[in-house]
C-alpha cells in the first residue's frame, strides 16, 4: 500500500468542503478529468465581489487526489479570485508530500482550478 503523509490521511478521512454548492448567480463551477481516466474533480465556488466566500469539491480518485482537493478548497476560501489563476500544483504537492508518480493527477486538479479562474474572471 502506498505511504500517505499524515496530512493526506487527515484530509482523506475528514475531507473539508466535500460536496457541491447549489447553483446560484454567485456560484461558479468547473470540472476536469474523468472517471475513465481514474481521476476527476468538480469545483464550485461562491463569489462575493472579488473574493471567494465558499468553495466545495467533488473528487473521484486516489487518496492523494481527495486530500489535495480538500486542502486546496480550504486554502482558497477567503482569497481573491485572482488567486485561482495563480494557483498551481506545487504547494499542495509539497504540503501533502505527494509522490512524483501522482503529479499528473495534480495537474488535473490544476486544470479544474484554472478553469474555475477563467469563469470567475470573465466580465459579467
Amino acid at each position: 500500500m502506498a505511504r500517505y503523509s499524515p496530512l493526506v490521511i487527515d484530509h482523506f478521512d475528514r475531507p473539508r468542503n466535500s460536496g457541491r454548492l447549489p447553483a446560484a448567480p454567485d456560484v461558479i463551477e468547473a470540472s476536469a478529468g474523468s472517471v475513465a481516466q481514474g481521476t476527476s474533480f468538480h469545483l464550485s465556488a461562491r463569489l462575493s465581489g472579488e473574493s471567494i466566500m465558499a468553495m466545495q469539491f467533488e473528487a473521484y480518485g486516489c487518496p492523494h487526489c481527495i486530500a489535495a482537493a480538500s486542502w486546496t478548497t480550504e486554502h482558497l476560501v477567503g482569497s481573491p479570485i485572482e488567486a485561482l489563476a495563480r494557483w498551481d500544483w506545487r504547494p499542495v504537492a509539497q504540503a501533502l508530500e505527494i509522490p512524483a508518480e501522482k503529479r499528473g493527477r495534480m495537474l488535473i486538479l490544476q486544470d479544474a482550478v484554472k478553469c474555475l479562474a477563467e469563469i470567475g474572471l470573465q466580465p459579467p
Partner: protein
Amino acid sequence: MSSPIYLDYAATTPVDPRVADRMIECLRPEGAHGNPSSASHEFGRRARELVEKARVQVANAIGAKPATIVWTSGATESDNLAIQGVARFHADRGRHIVSSKTEHKAVLDALKQLEREGFDVTYLRPGVDGIVQPEQVREALRPDTILVSLMHVNNETGVIQDVGAVGRLCRERGVLFHCDAAQSIGKVPVDVEAMQIDLLSMTAHKAYGPKGVGALYVRRTPPVGLRPILFGGGQEFGLRSGTLPTHQIVGMGAAFELAIAEKDEDVDRLRSLRERLWQGIAKVGDVEINAESADRVSNILNVTFHGVEGESLQFALRAVAVSAGAACSSGSDEASYVLRALGRTDQQAQSSLRFSLGRFSTTAEVETAIAEVQREVGRLRQIASG
C-alpha cells in the same frame, strides 16, 4: 485502531496451531535436527522417517503415490521446475506451449523466460466467466506442442477450471499437462490420476501450513521427462537438489492431512460466511461479483465496486485486510491482468477487491467487514458525486 480483520486467506493463511505444534517438535533439540539424507545414523534416519511420512500425507491429498512427490520451496519453484524442466527436456521434440492469460505470475514469468529462449507460447483468453474451455485448448494444440499449463483454481476470482477435461484431452494428444493447484488443497477435490495430470504444483502456506515449502507432483509411469533447475546434492530423485527442511516438510504434511480431513466442514462453513458477506456488500448497490456465473471455490469473493476508485477504496477499508484488483498503490497504476482478461476495463479492475475467507474467519468479523464496506463505499461515492 484495533487489529485489521484478516480477509486475505487467498494470499496466505496463518499456520494452524496444530501444524505449528508438529513443526516445533521437529525444531527442539530432542526433535529431528538430523539431515534426512544422512542414512548412516539415527538422527538422519529419524528426520527421513518424518519426511517420508509427510510425503505420504501430501500424496494422499491428491490421489498420488508417495514417490511422485518432489519437495520444493513453494508453488513458484514448483511451477518453474515443471515448466522449464519439461521445456528443456523436450526441446528437441517441440518448442510450443499452451497456457492462459489468467495464470499466476509464477507460470507467466516462467513462460516469458522460455519465450526469450526461443519457445513459442499460446496464451488462451478465458470467457467473461473466467473459464478456459477445453475446446480452446484443443484448437491451440500443434504438432510441436509439448506442454499445456493451466491452473486449477484462480487466485483472484476463485474460478475452478475443468482440469479433468483438459487432462483427458492432453493425454489423448500425447501432450504433457501441468496444473498449478496452489489454491486447491482443502477447497476442491484433486485427484491426479482421475484428472490425468502429469505435473501438479502445490504449496503449504495456502492450506494453513508454513511458507517456504511446496511440492511438485511428477508422474512416474511413464516418466514425464524433466530437467532439474537446481543442481547440487541430487536430493529428491535428482530433480531438486538441496538439504530437505524437515520441519517445513512436516508442517506441509500435517497441514495437507488436516485440509483433507476438514475440507467438507470448512467448505460448507465458508460458503455460508461468503454468502452473508455478499448479501451485506450488495446492499451498497452498483456492485458485481467477478466471474459470478462460474463454479468458484467457497472462500473467495471478488467484487467490482462501480463509482469508487480502487486505491481510495482499499485505503478506506484499511480496517479490513483484503487484496485489491489493482497494483496502483505501488504507483504502477497497473490493473489486475486477470480481471482485464475477463473483460473488465482498467477502471473496473482497479475498483475491485478480493475478499477471501478462511478457517479462522468468524461471523462477527464478516459483520464488521460488511459495516466497514457499507460506510466507506457510501462515503467515497458521496465525495465523488455529492
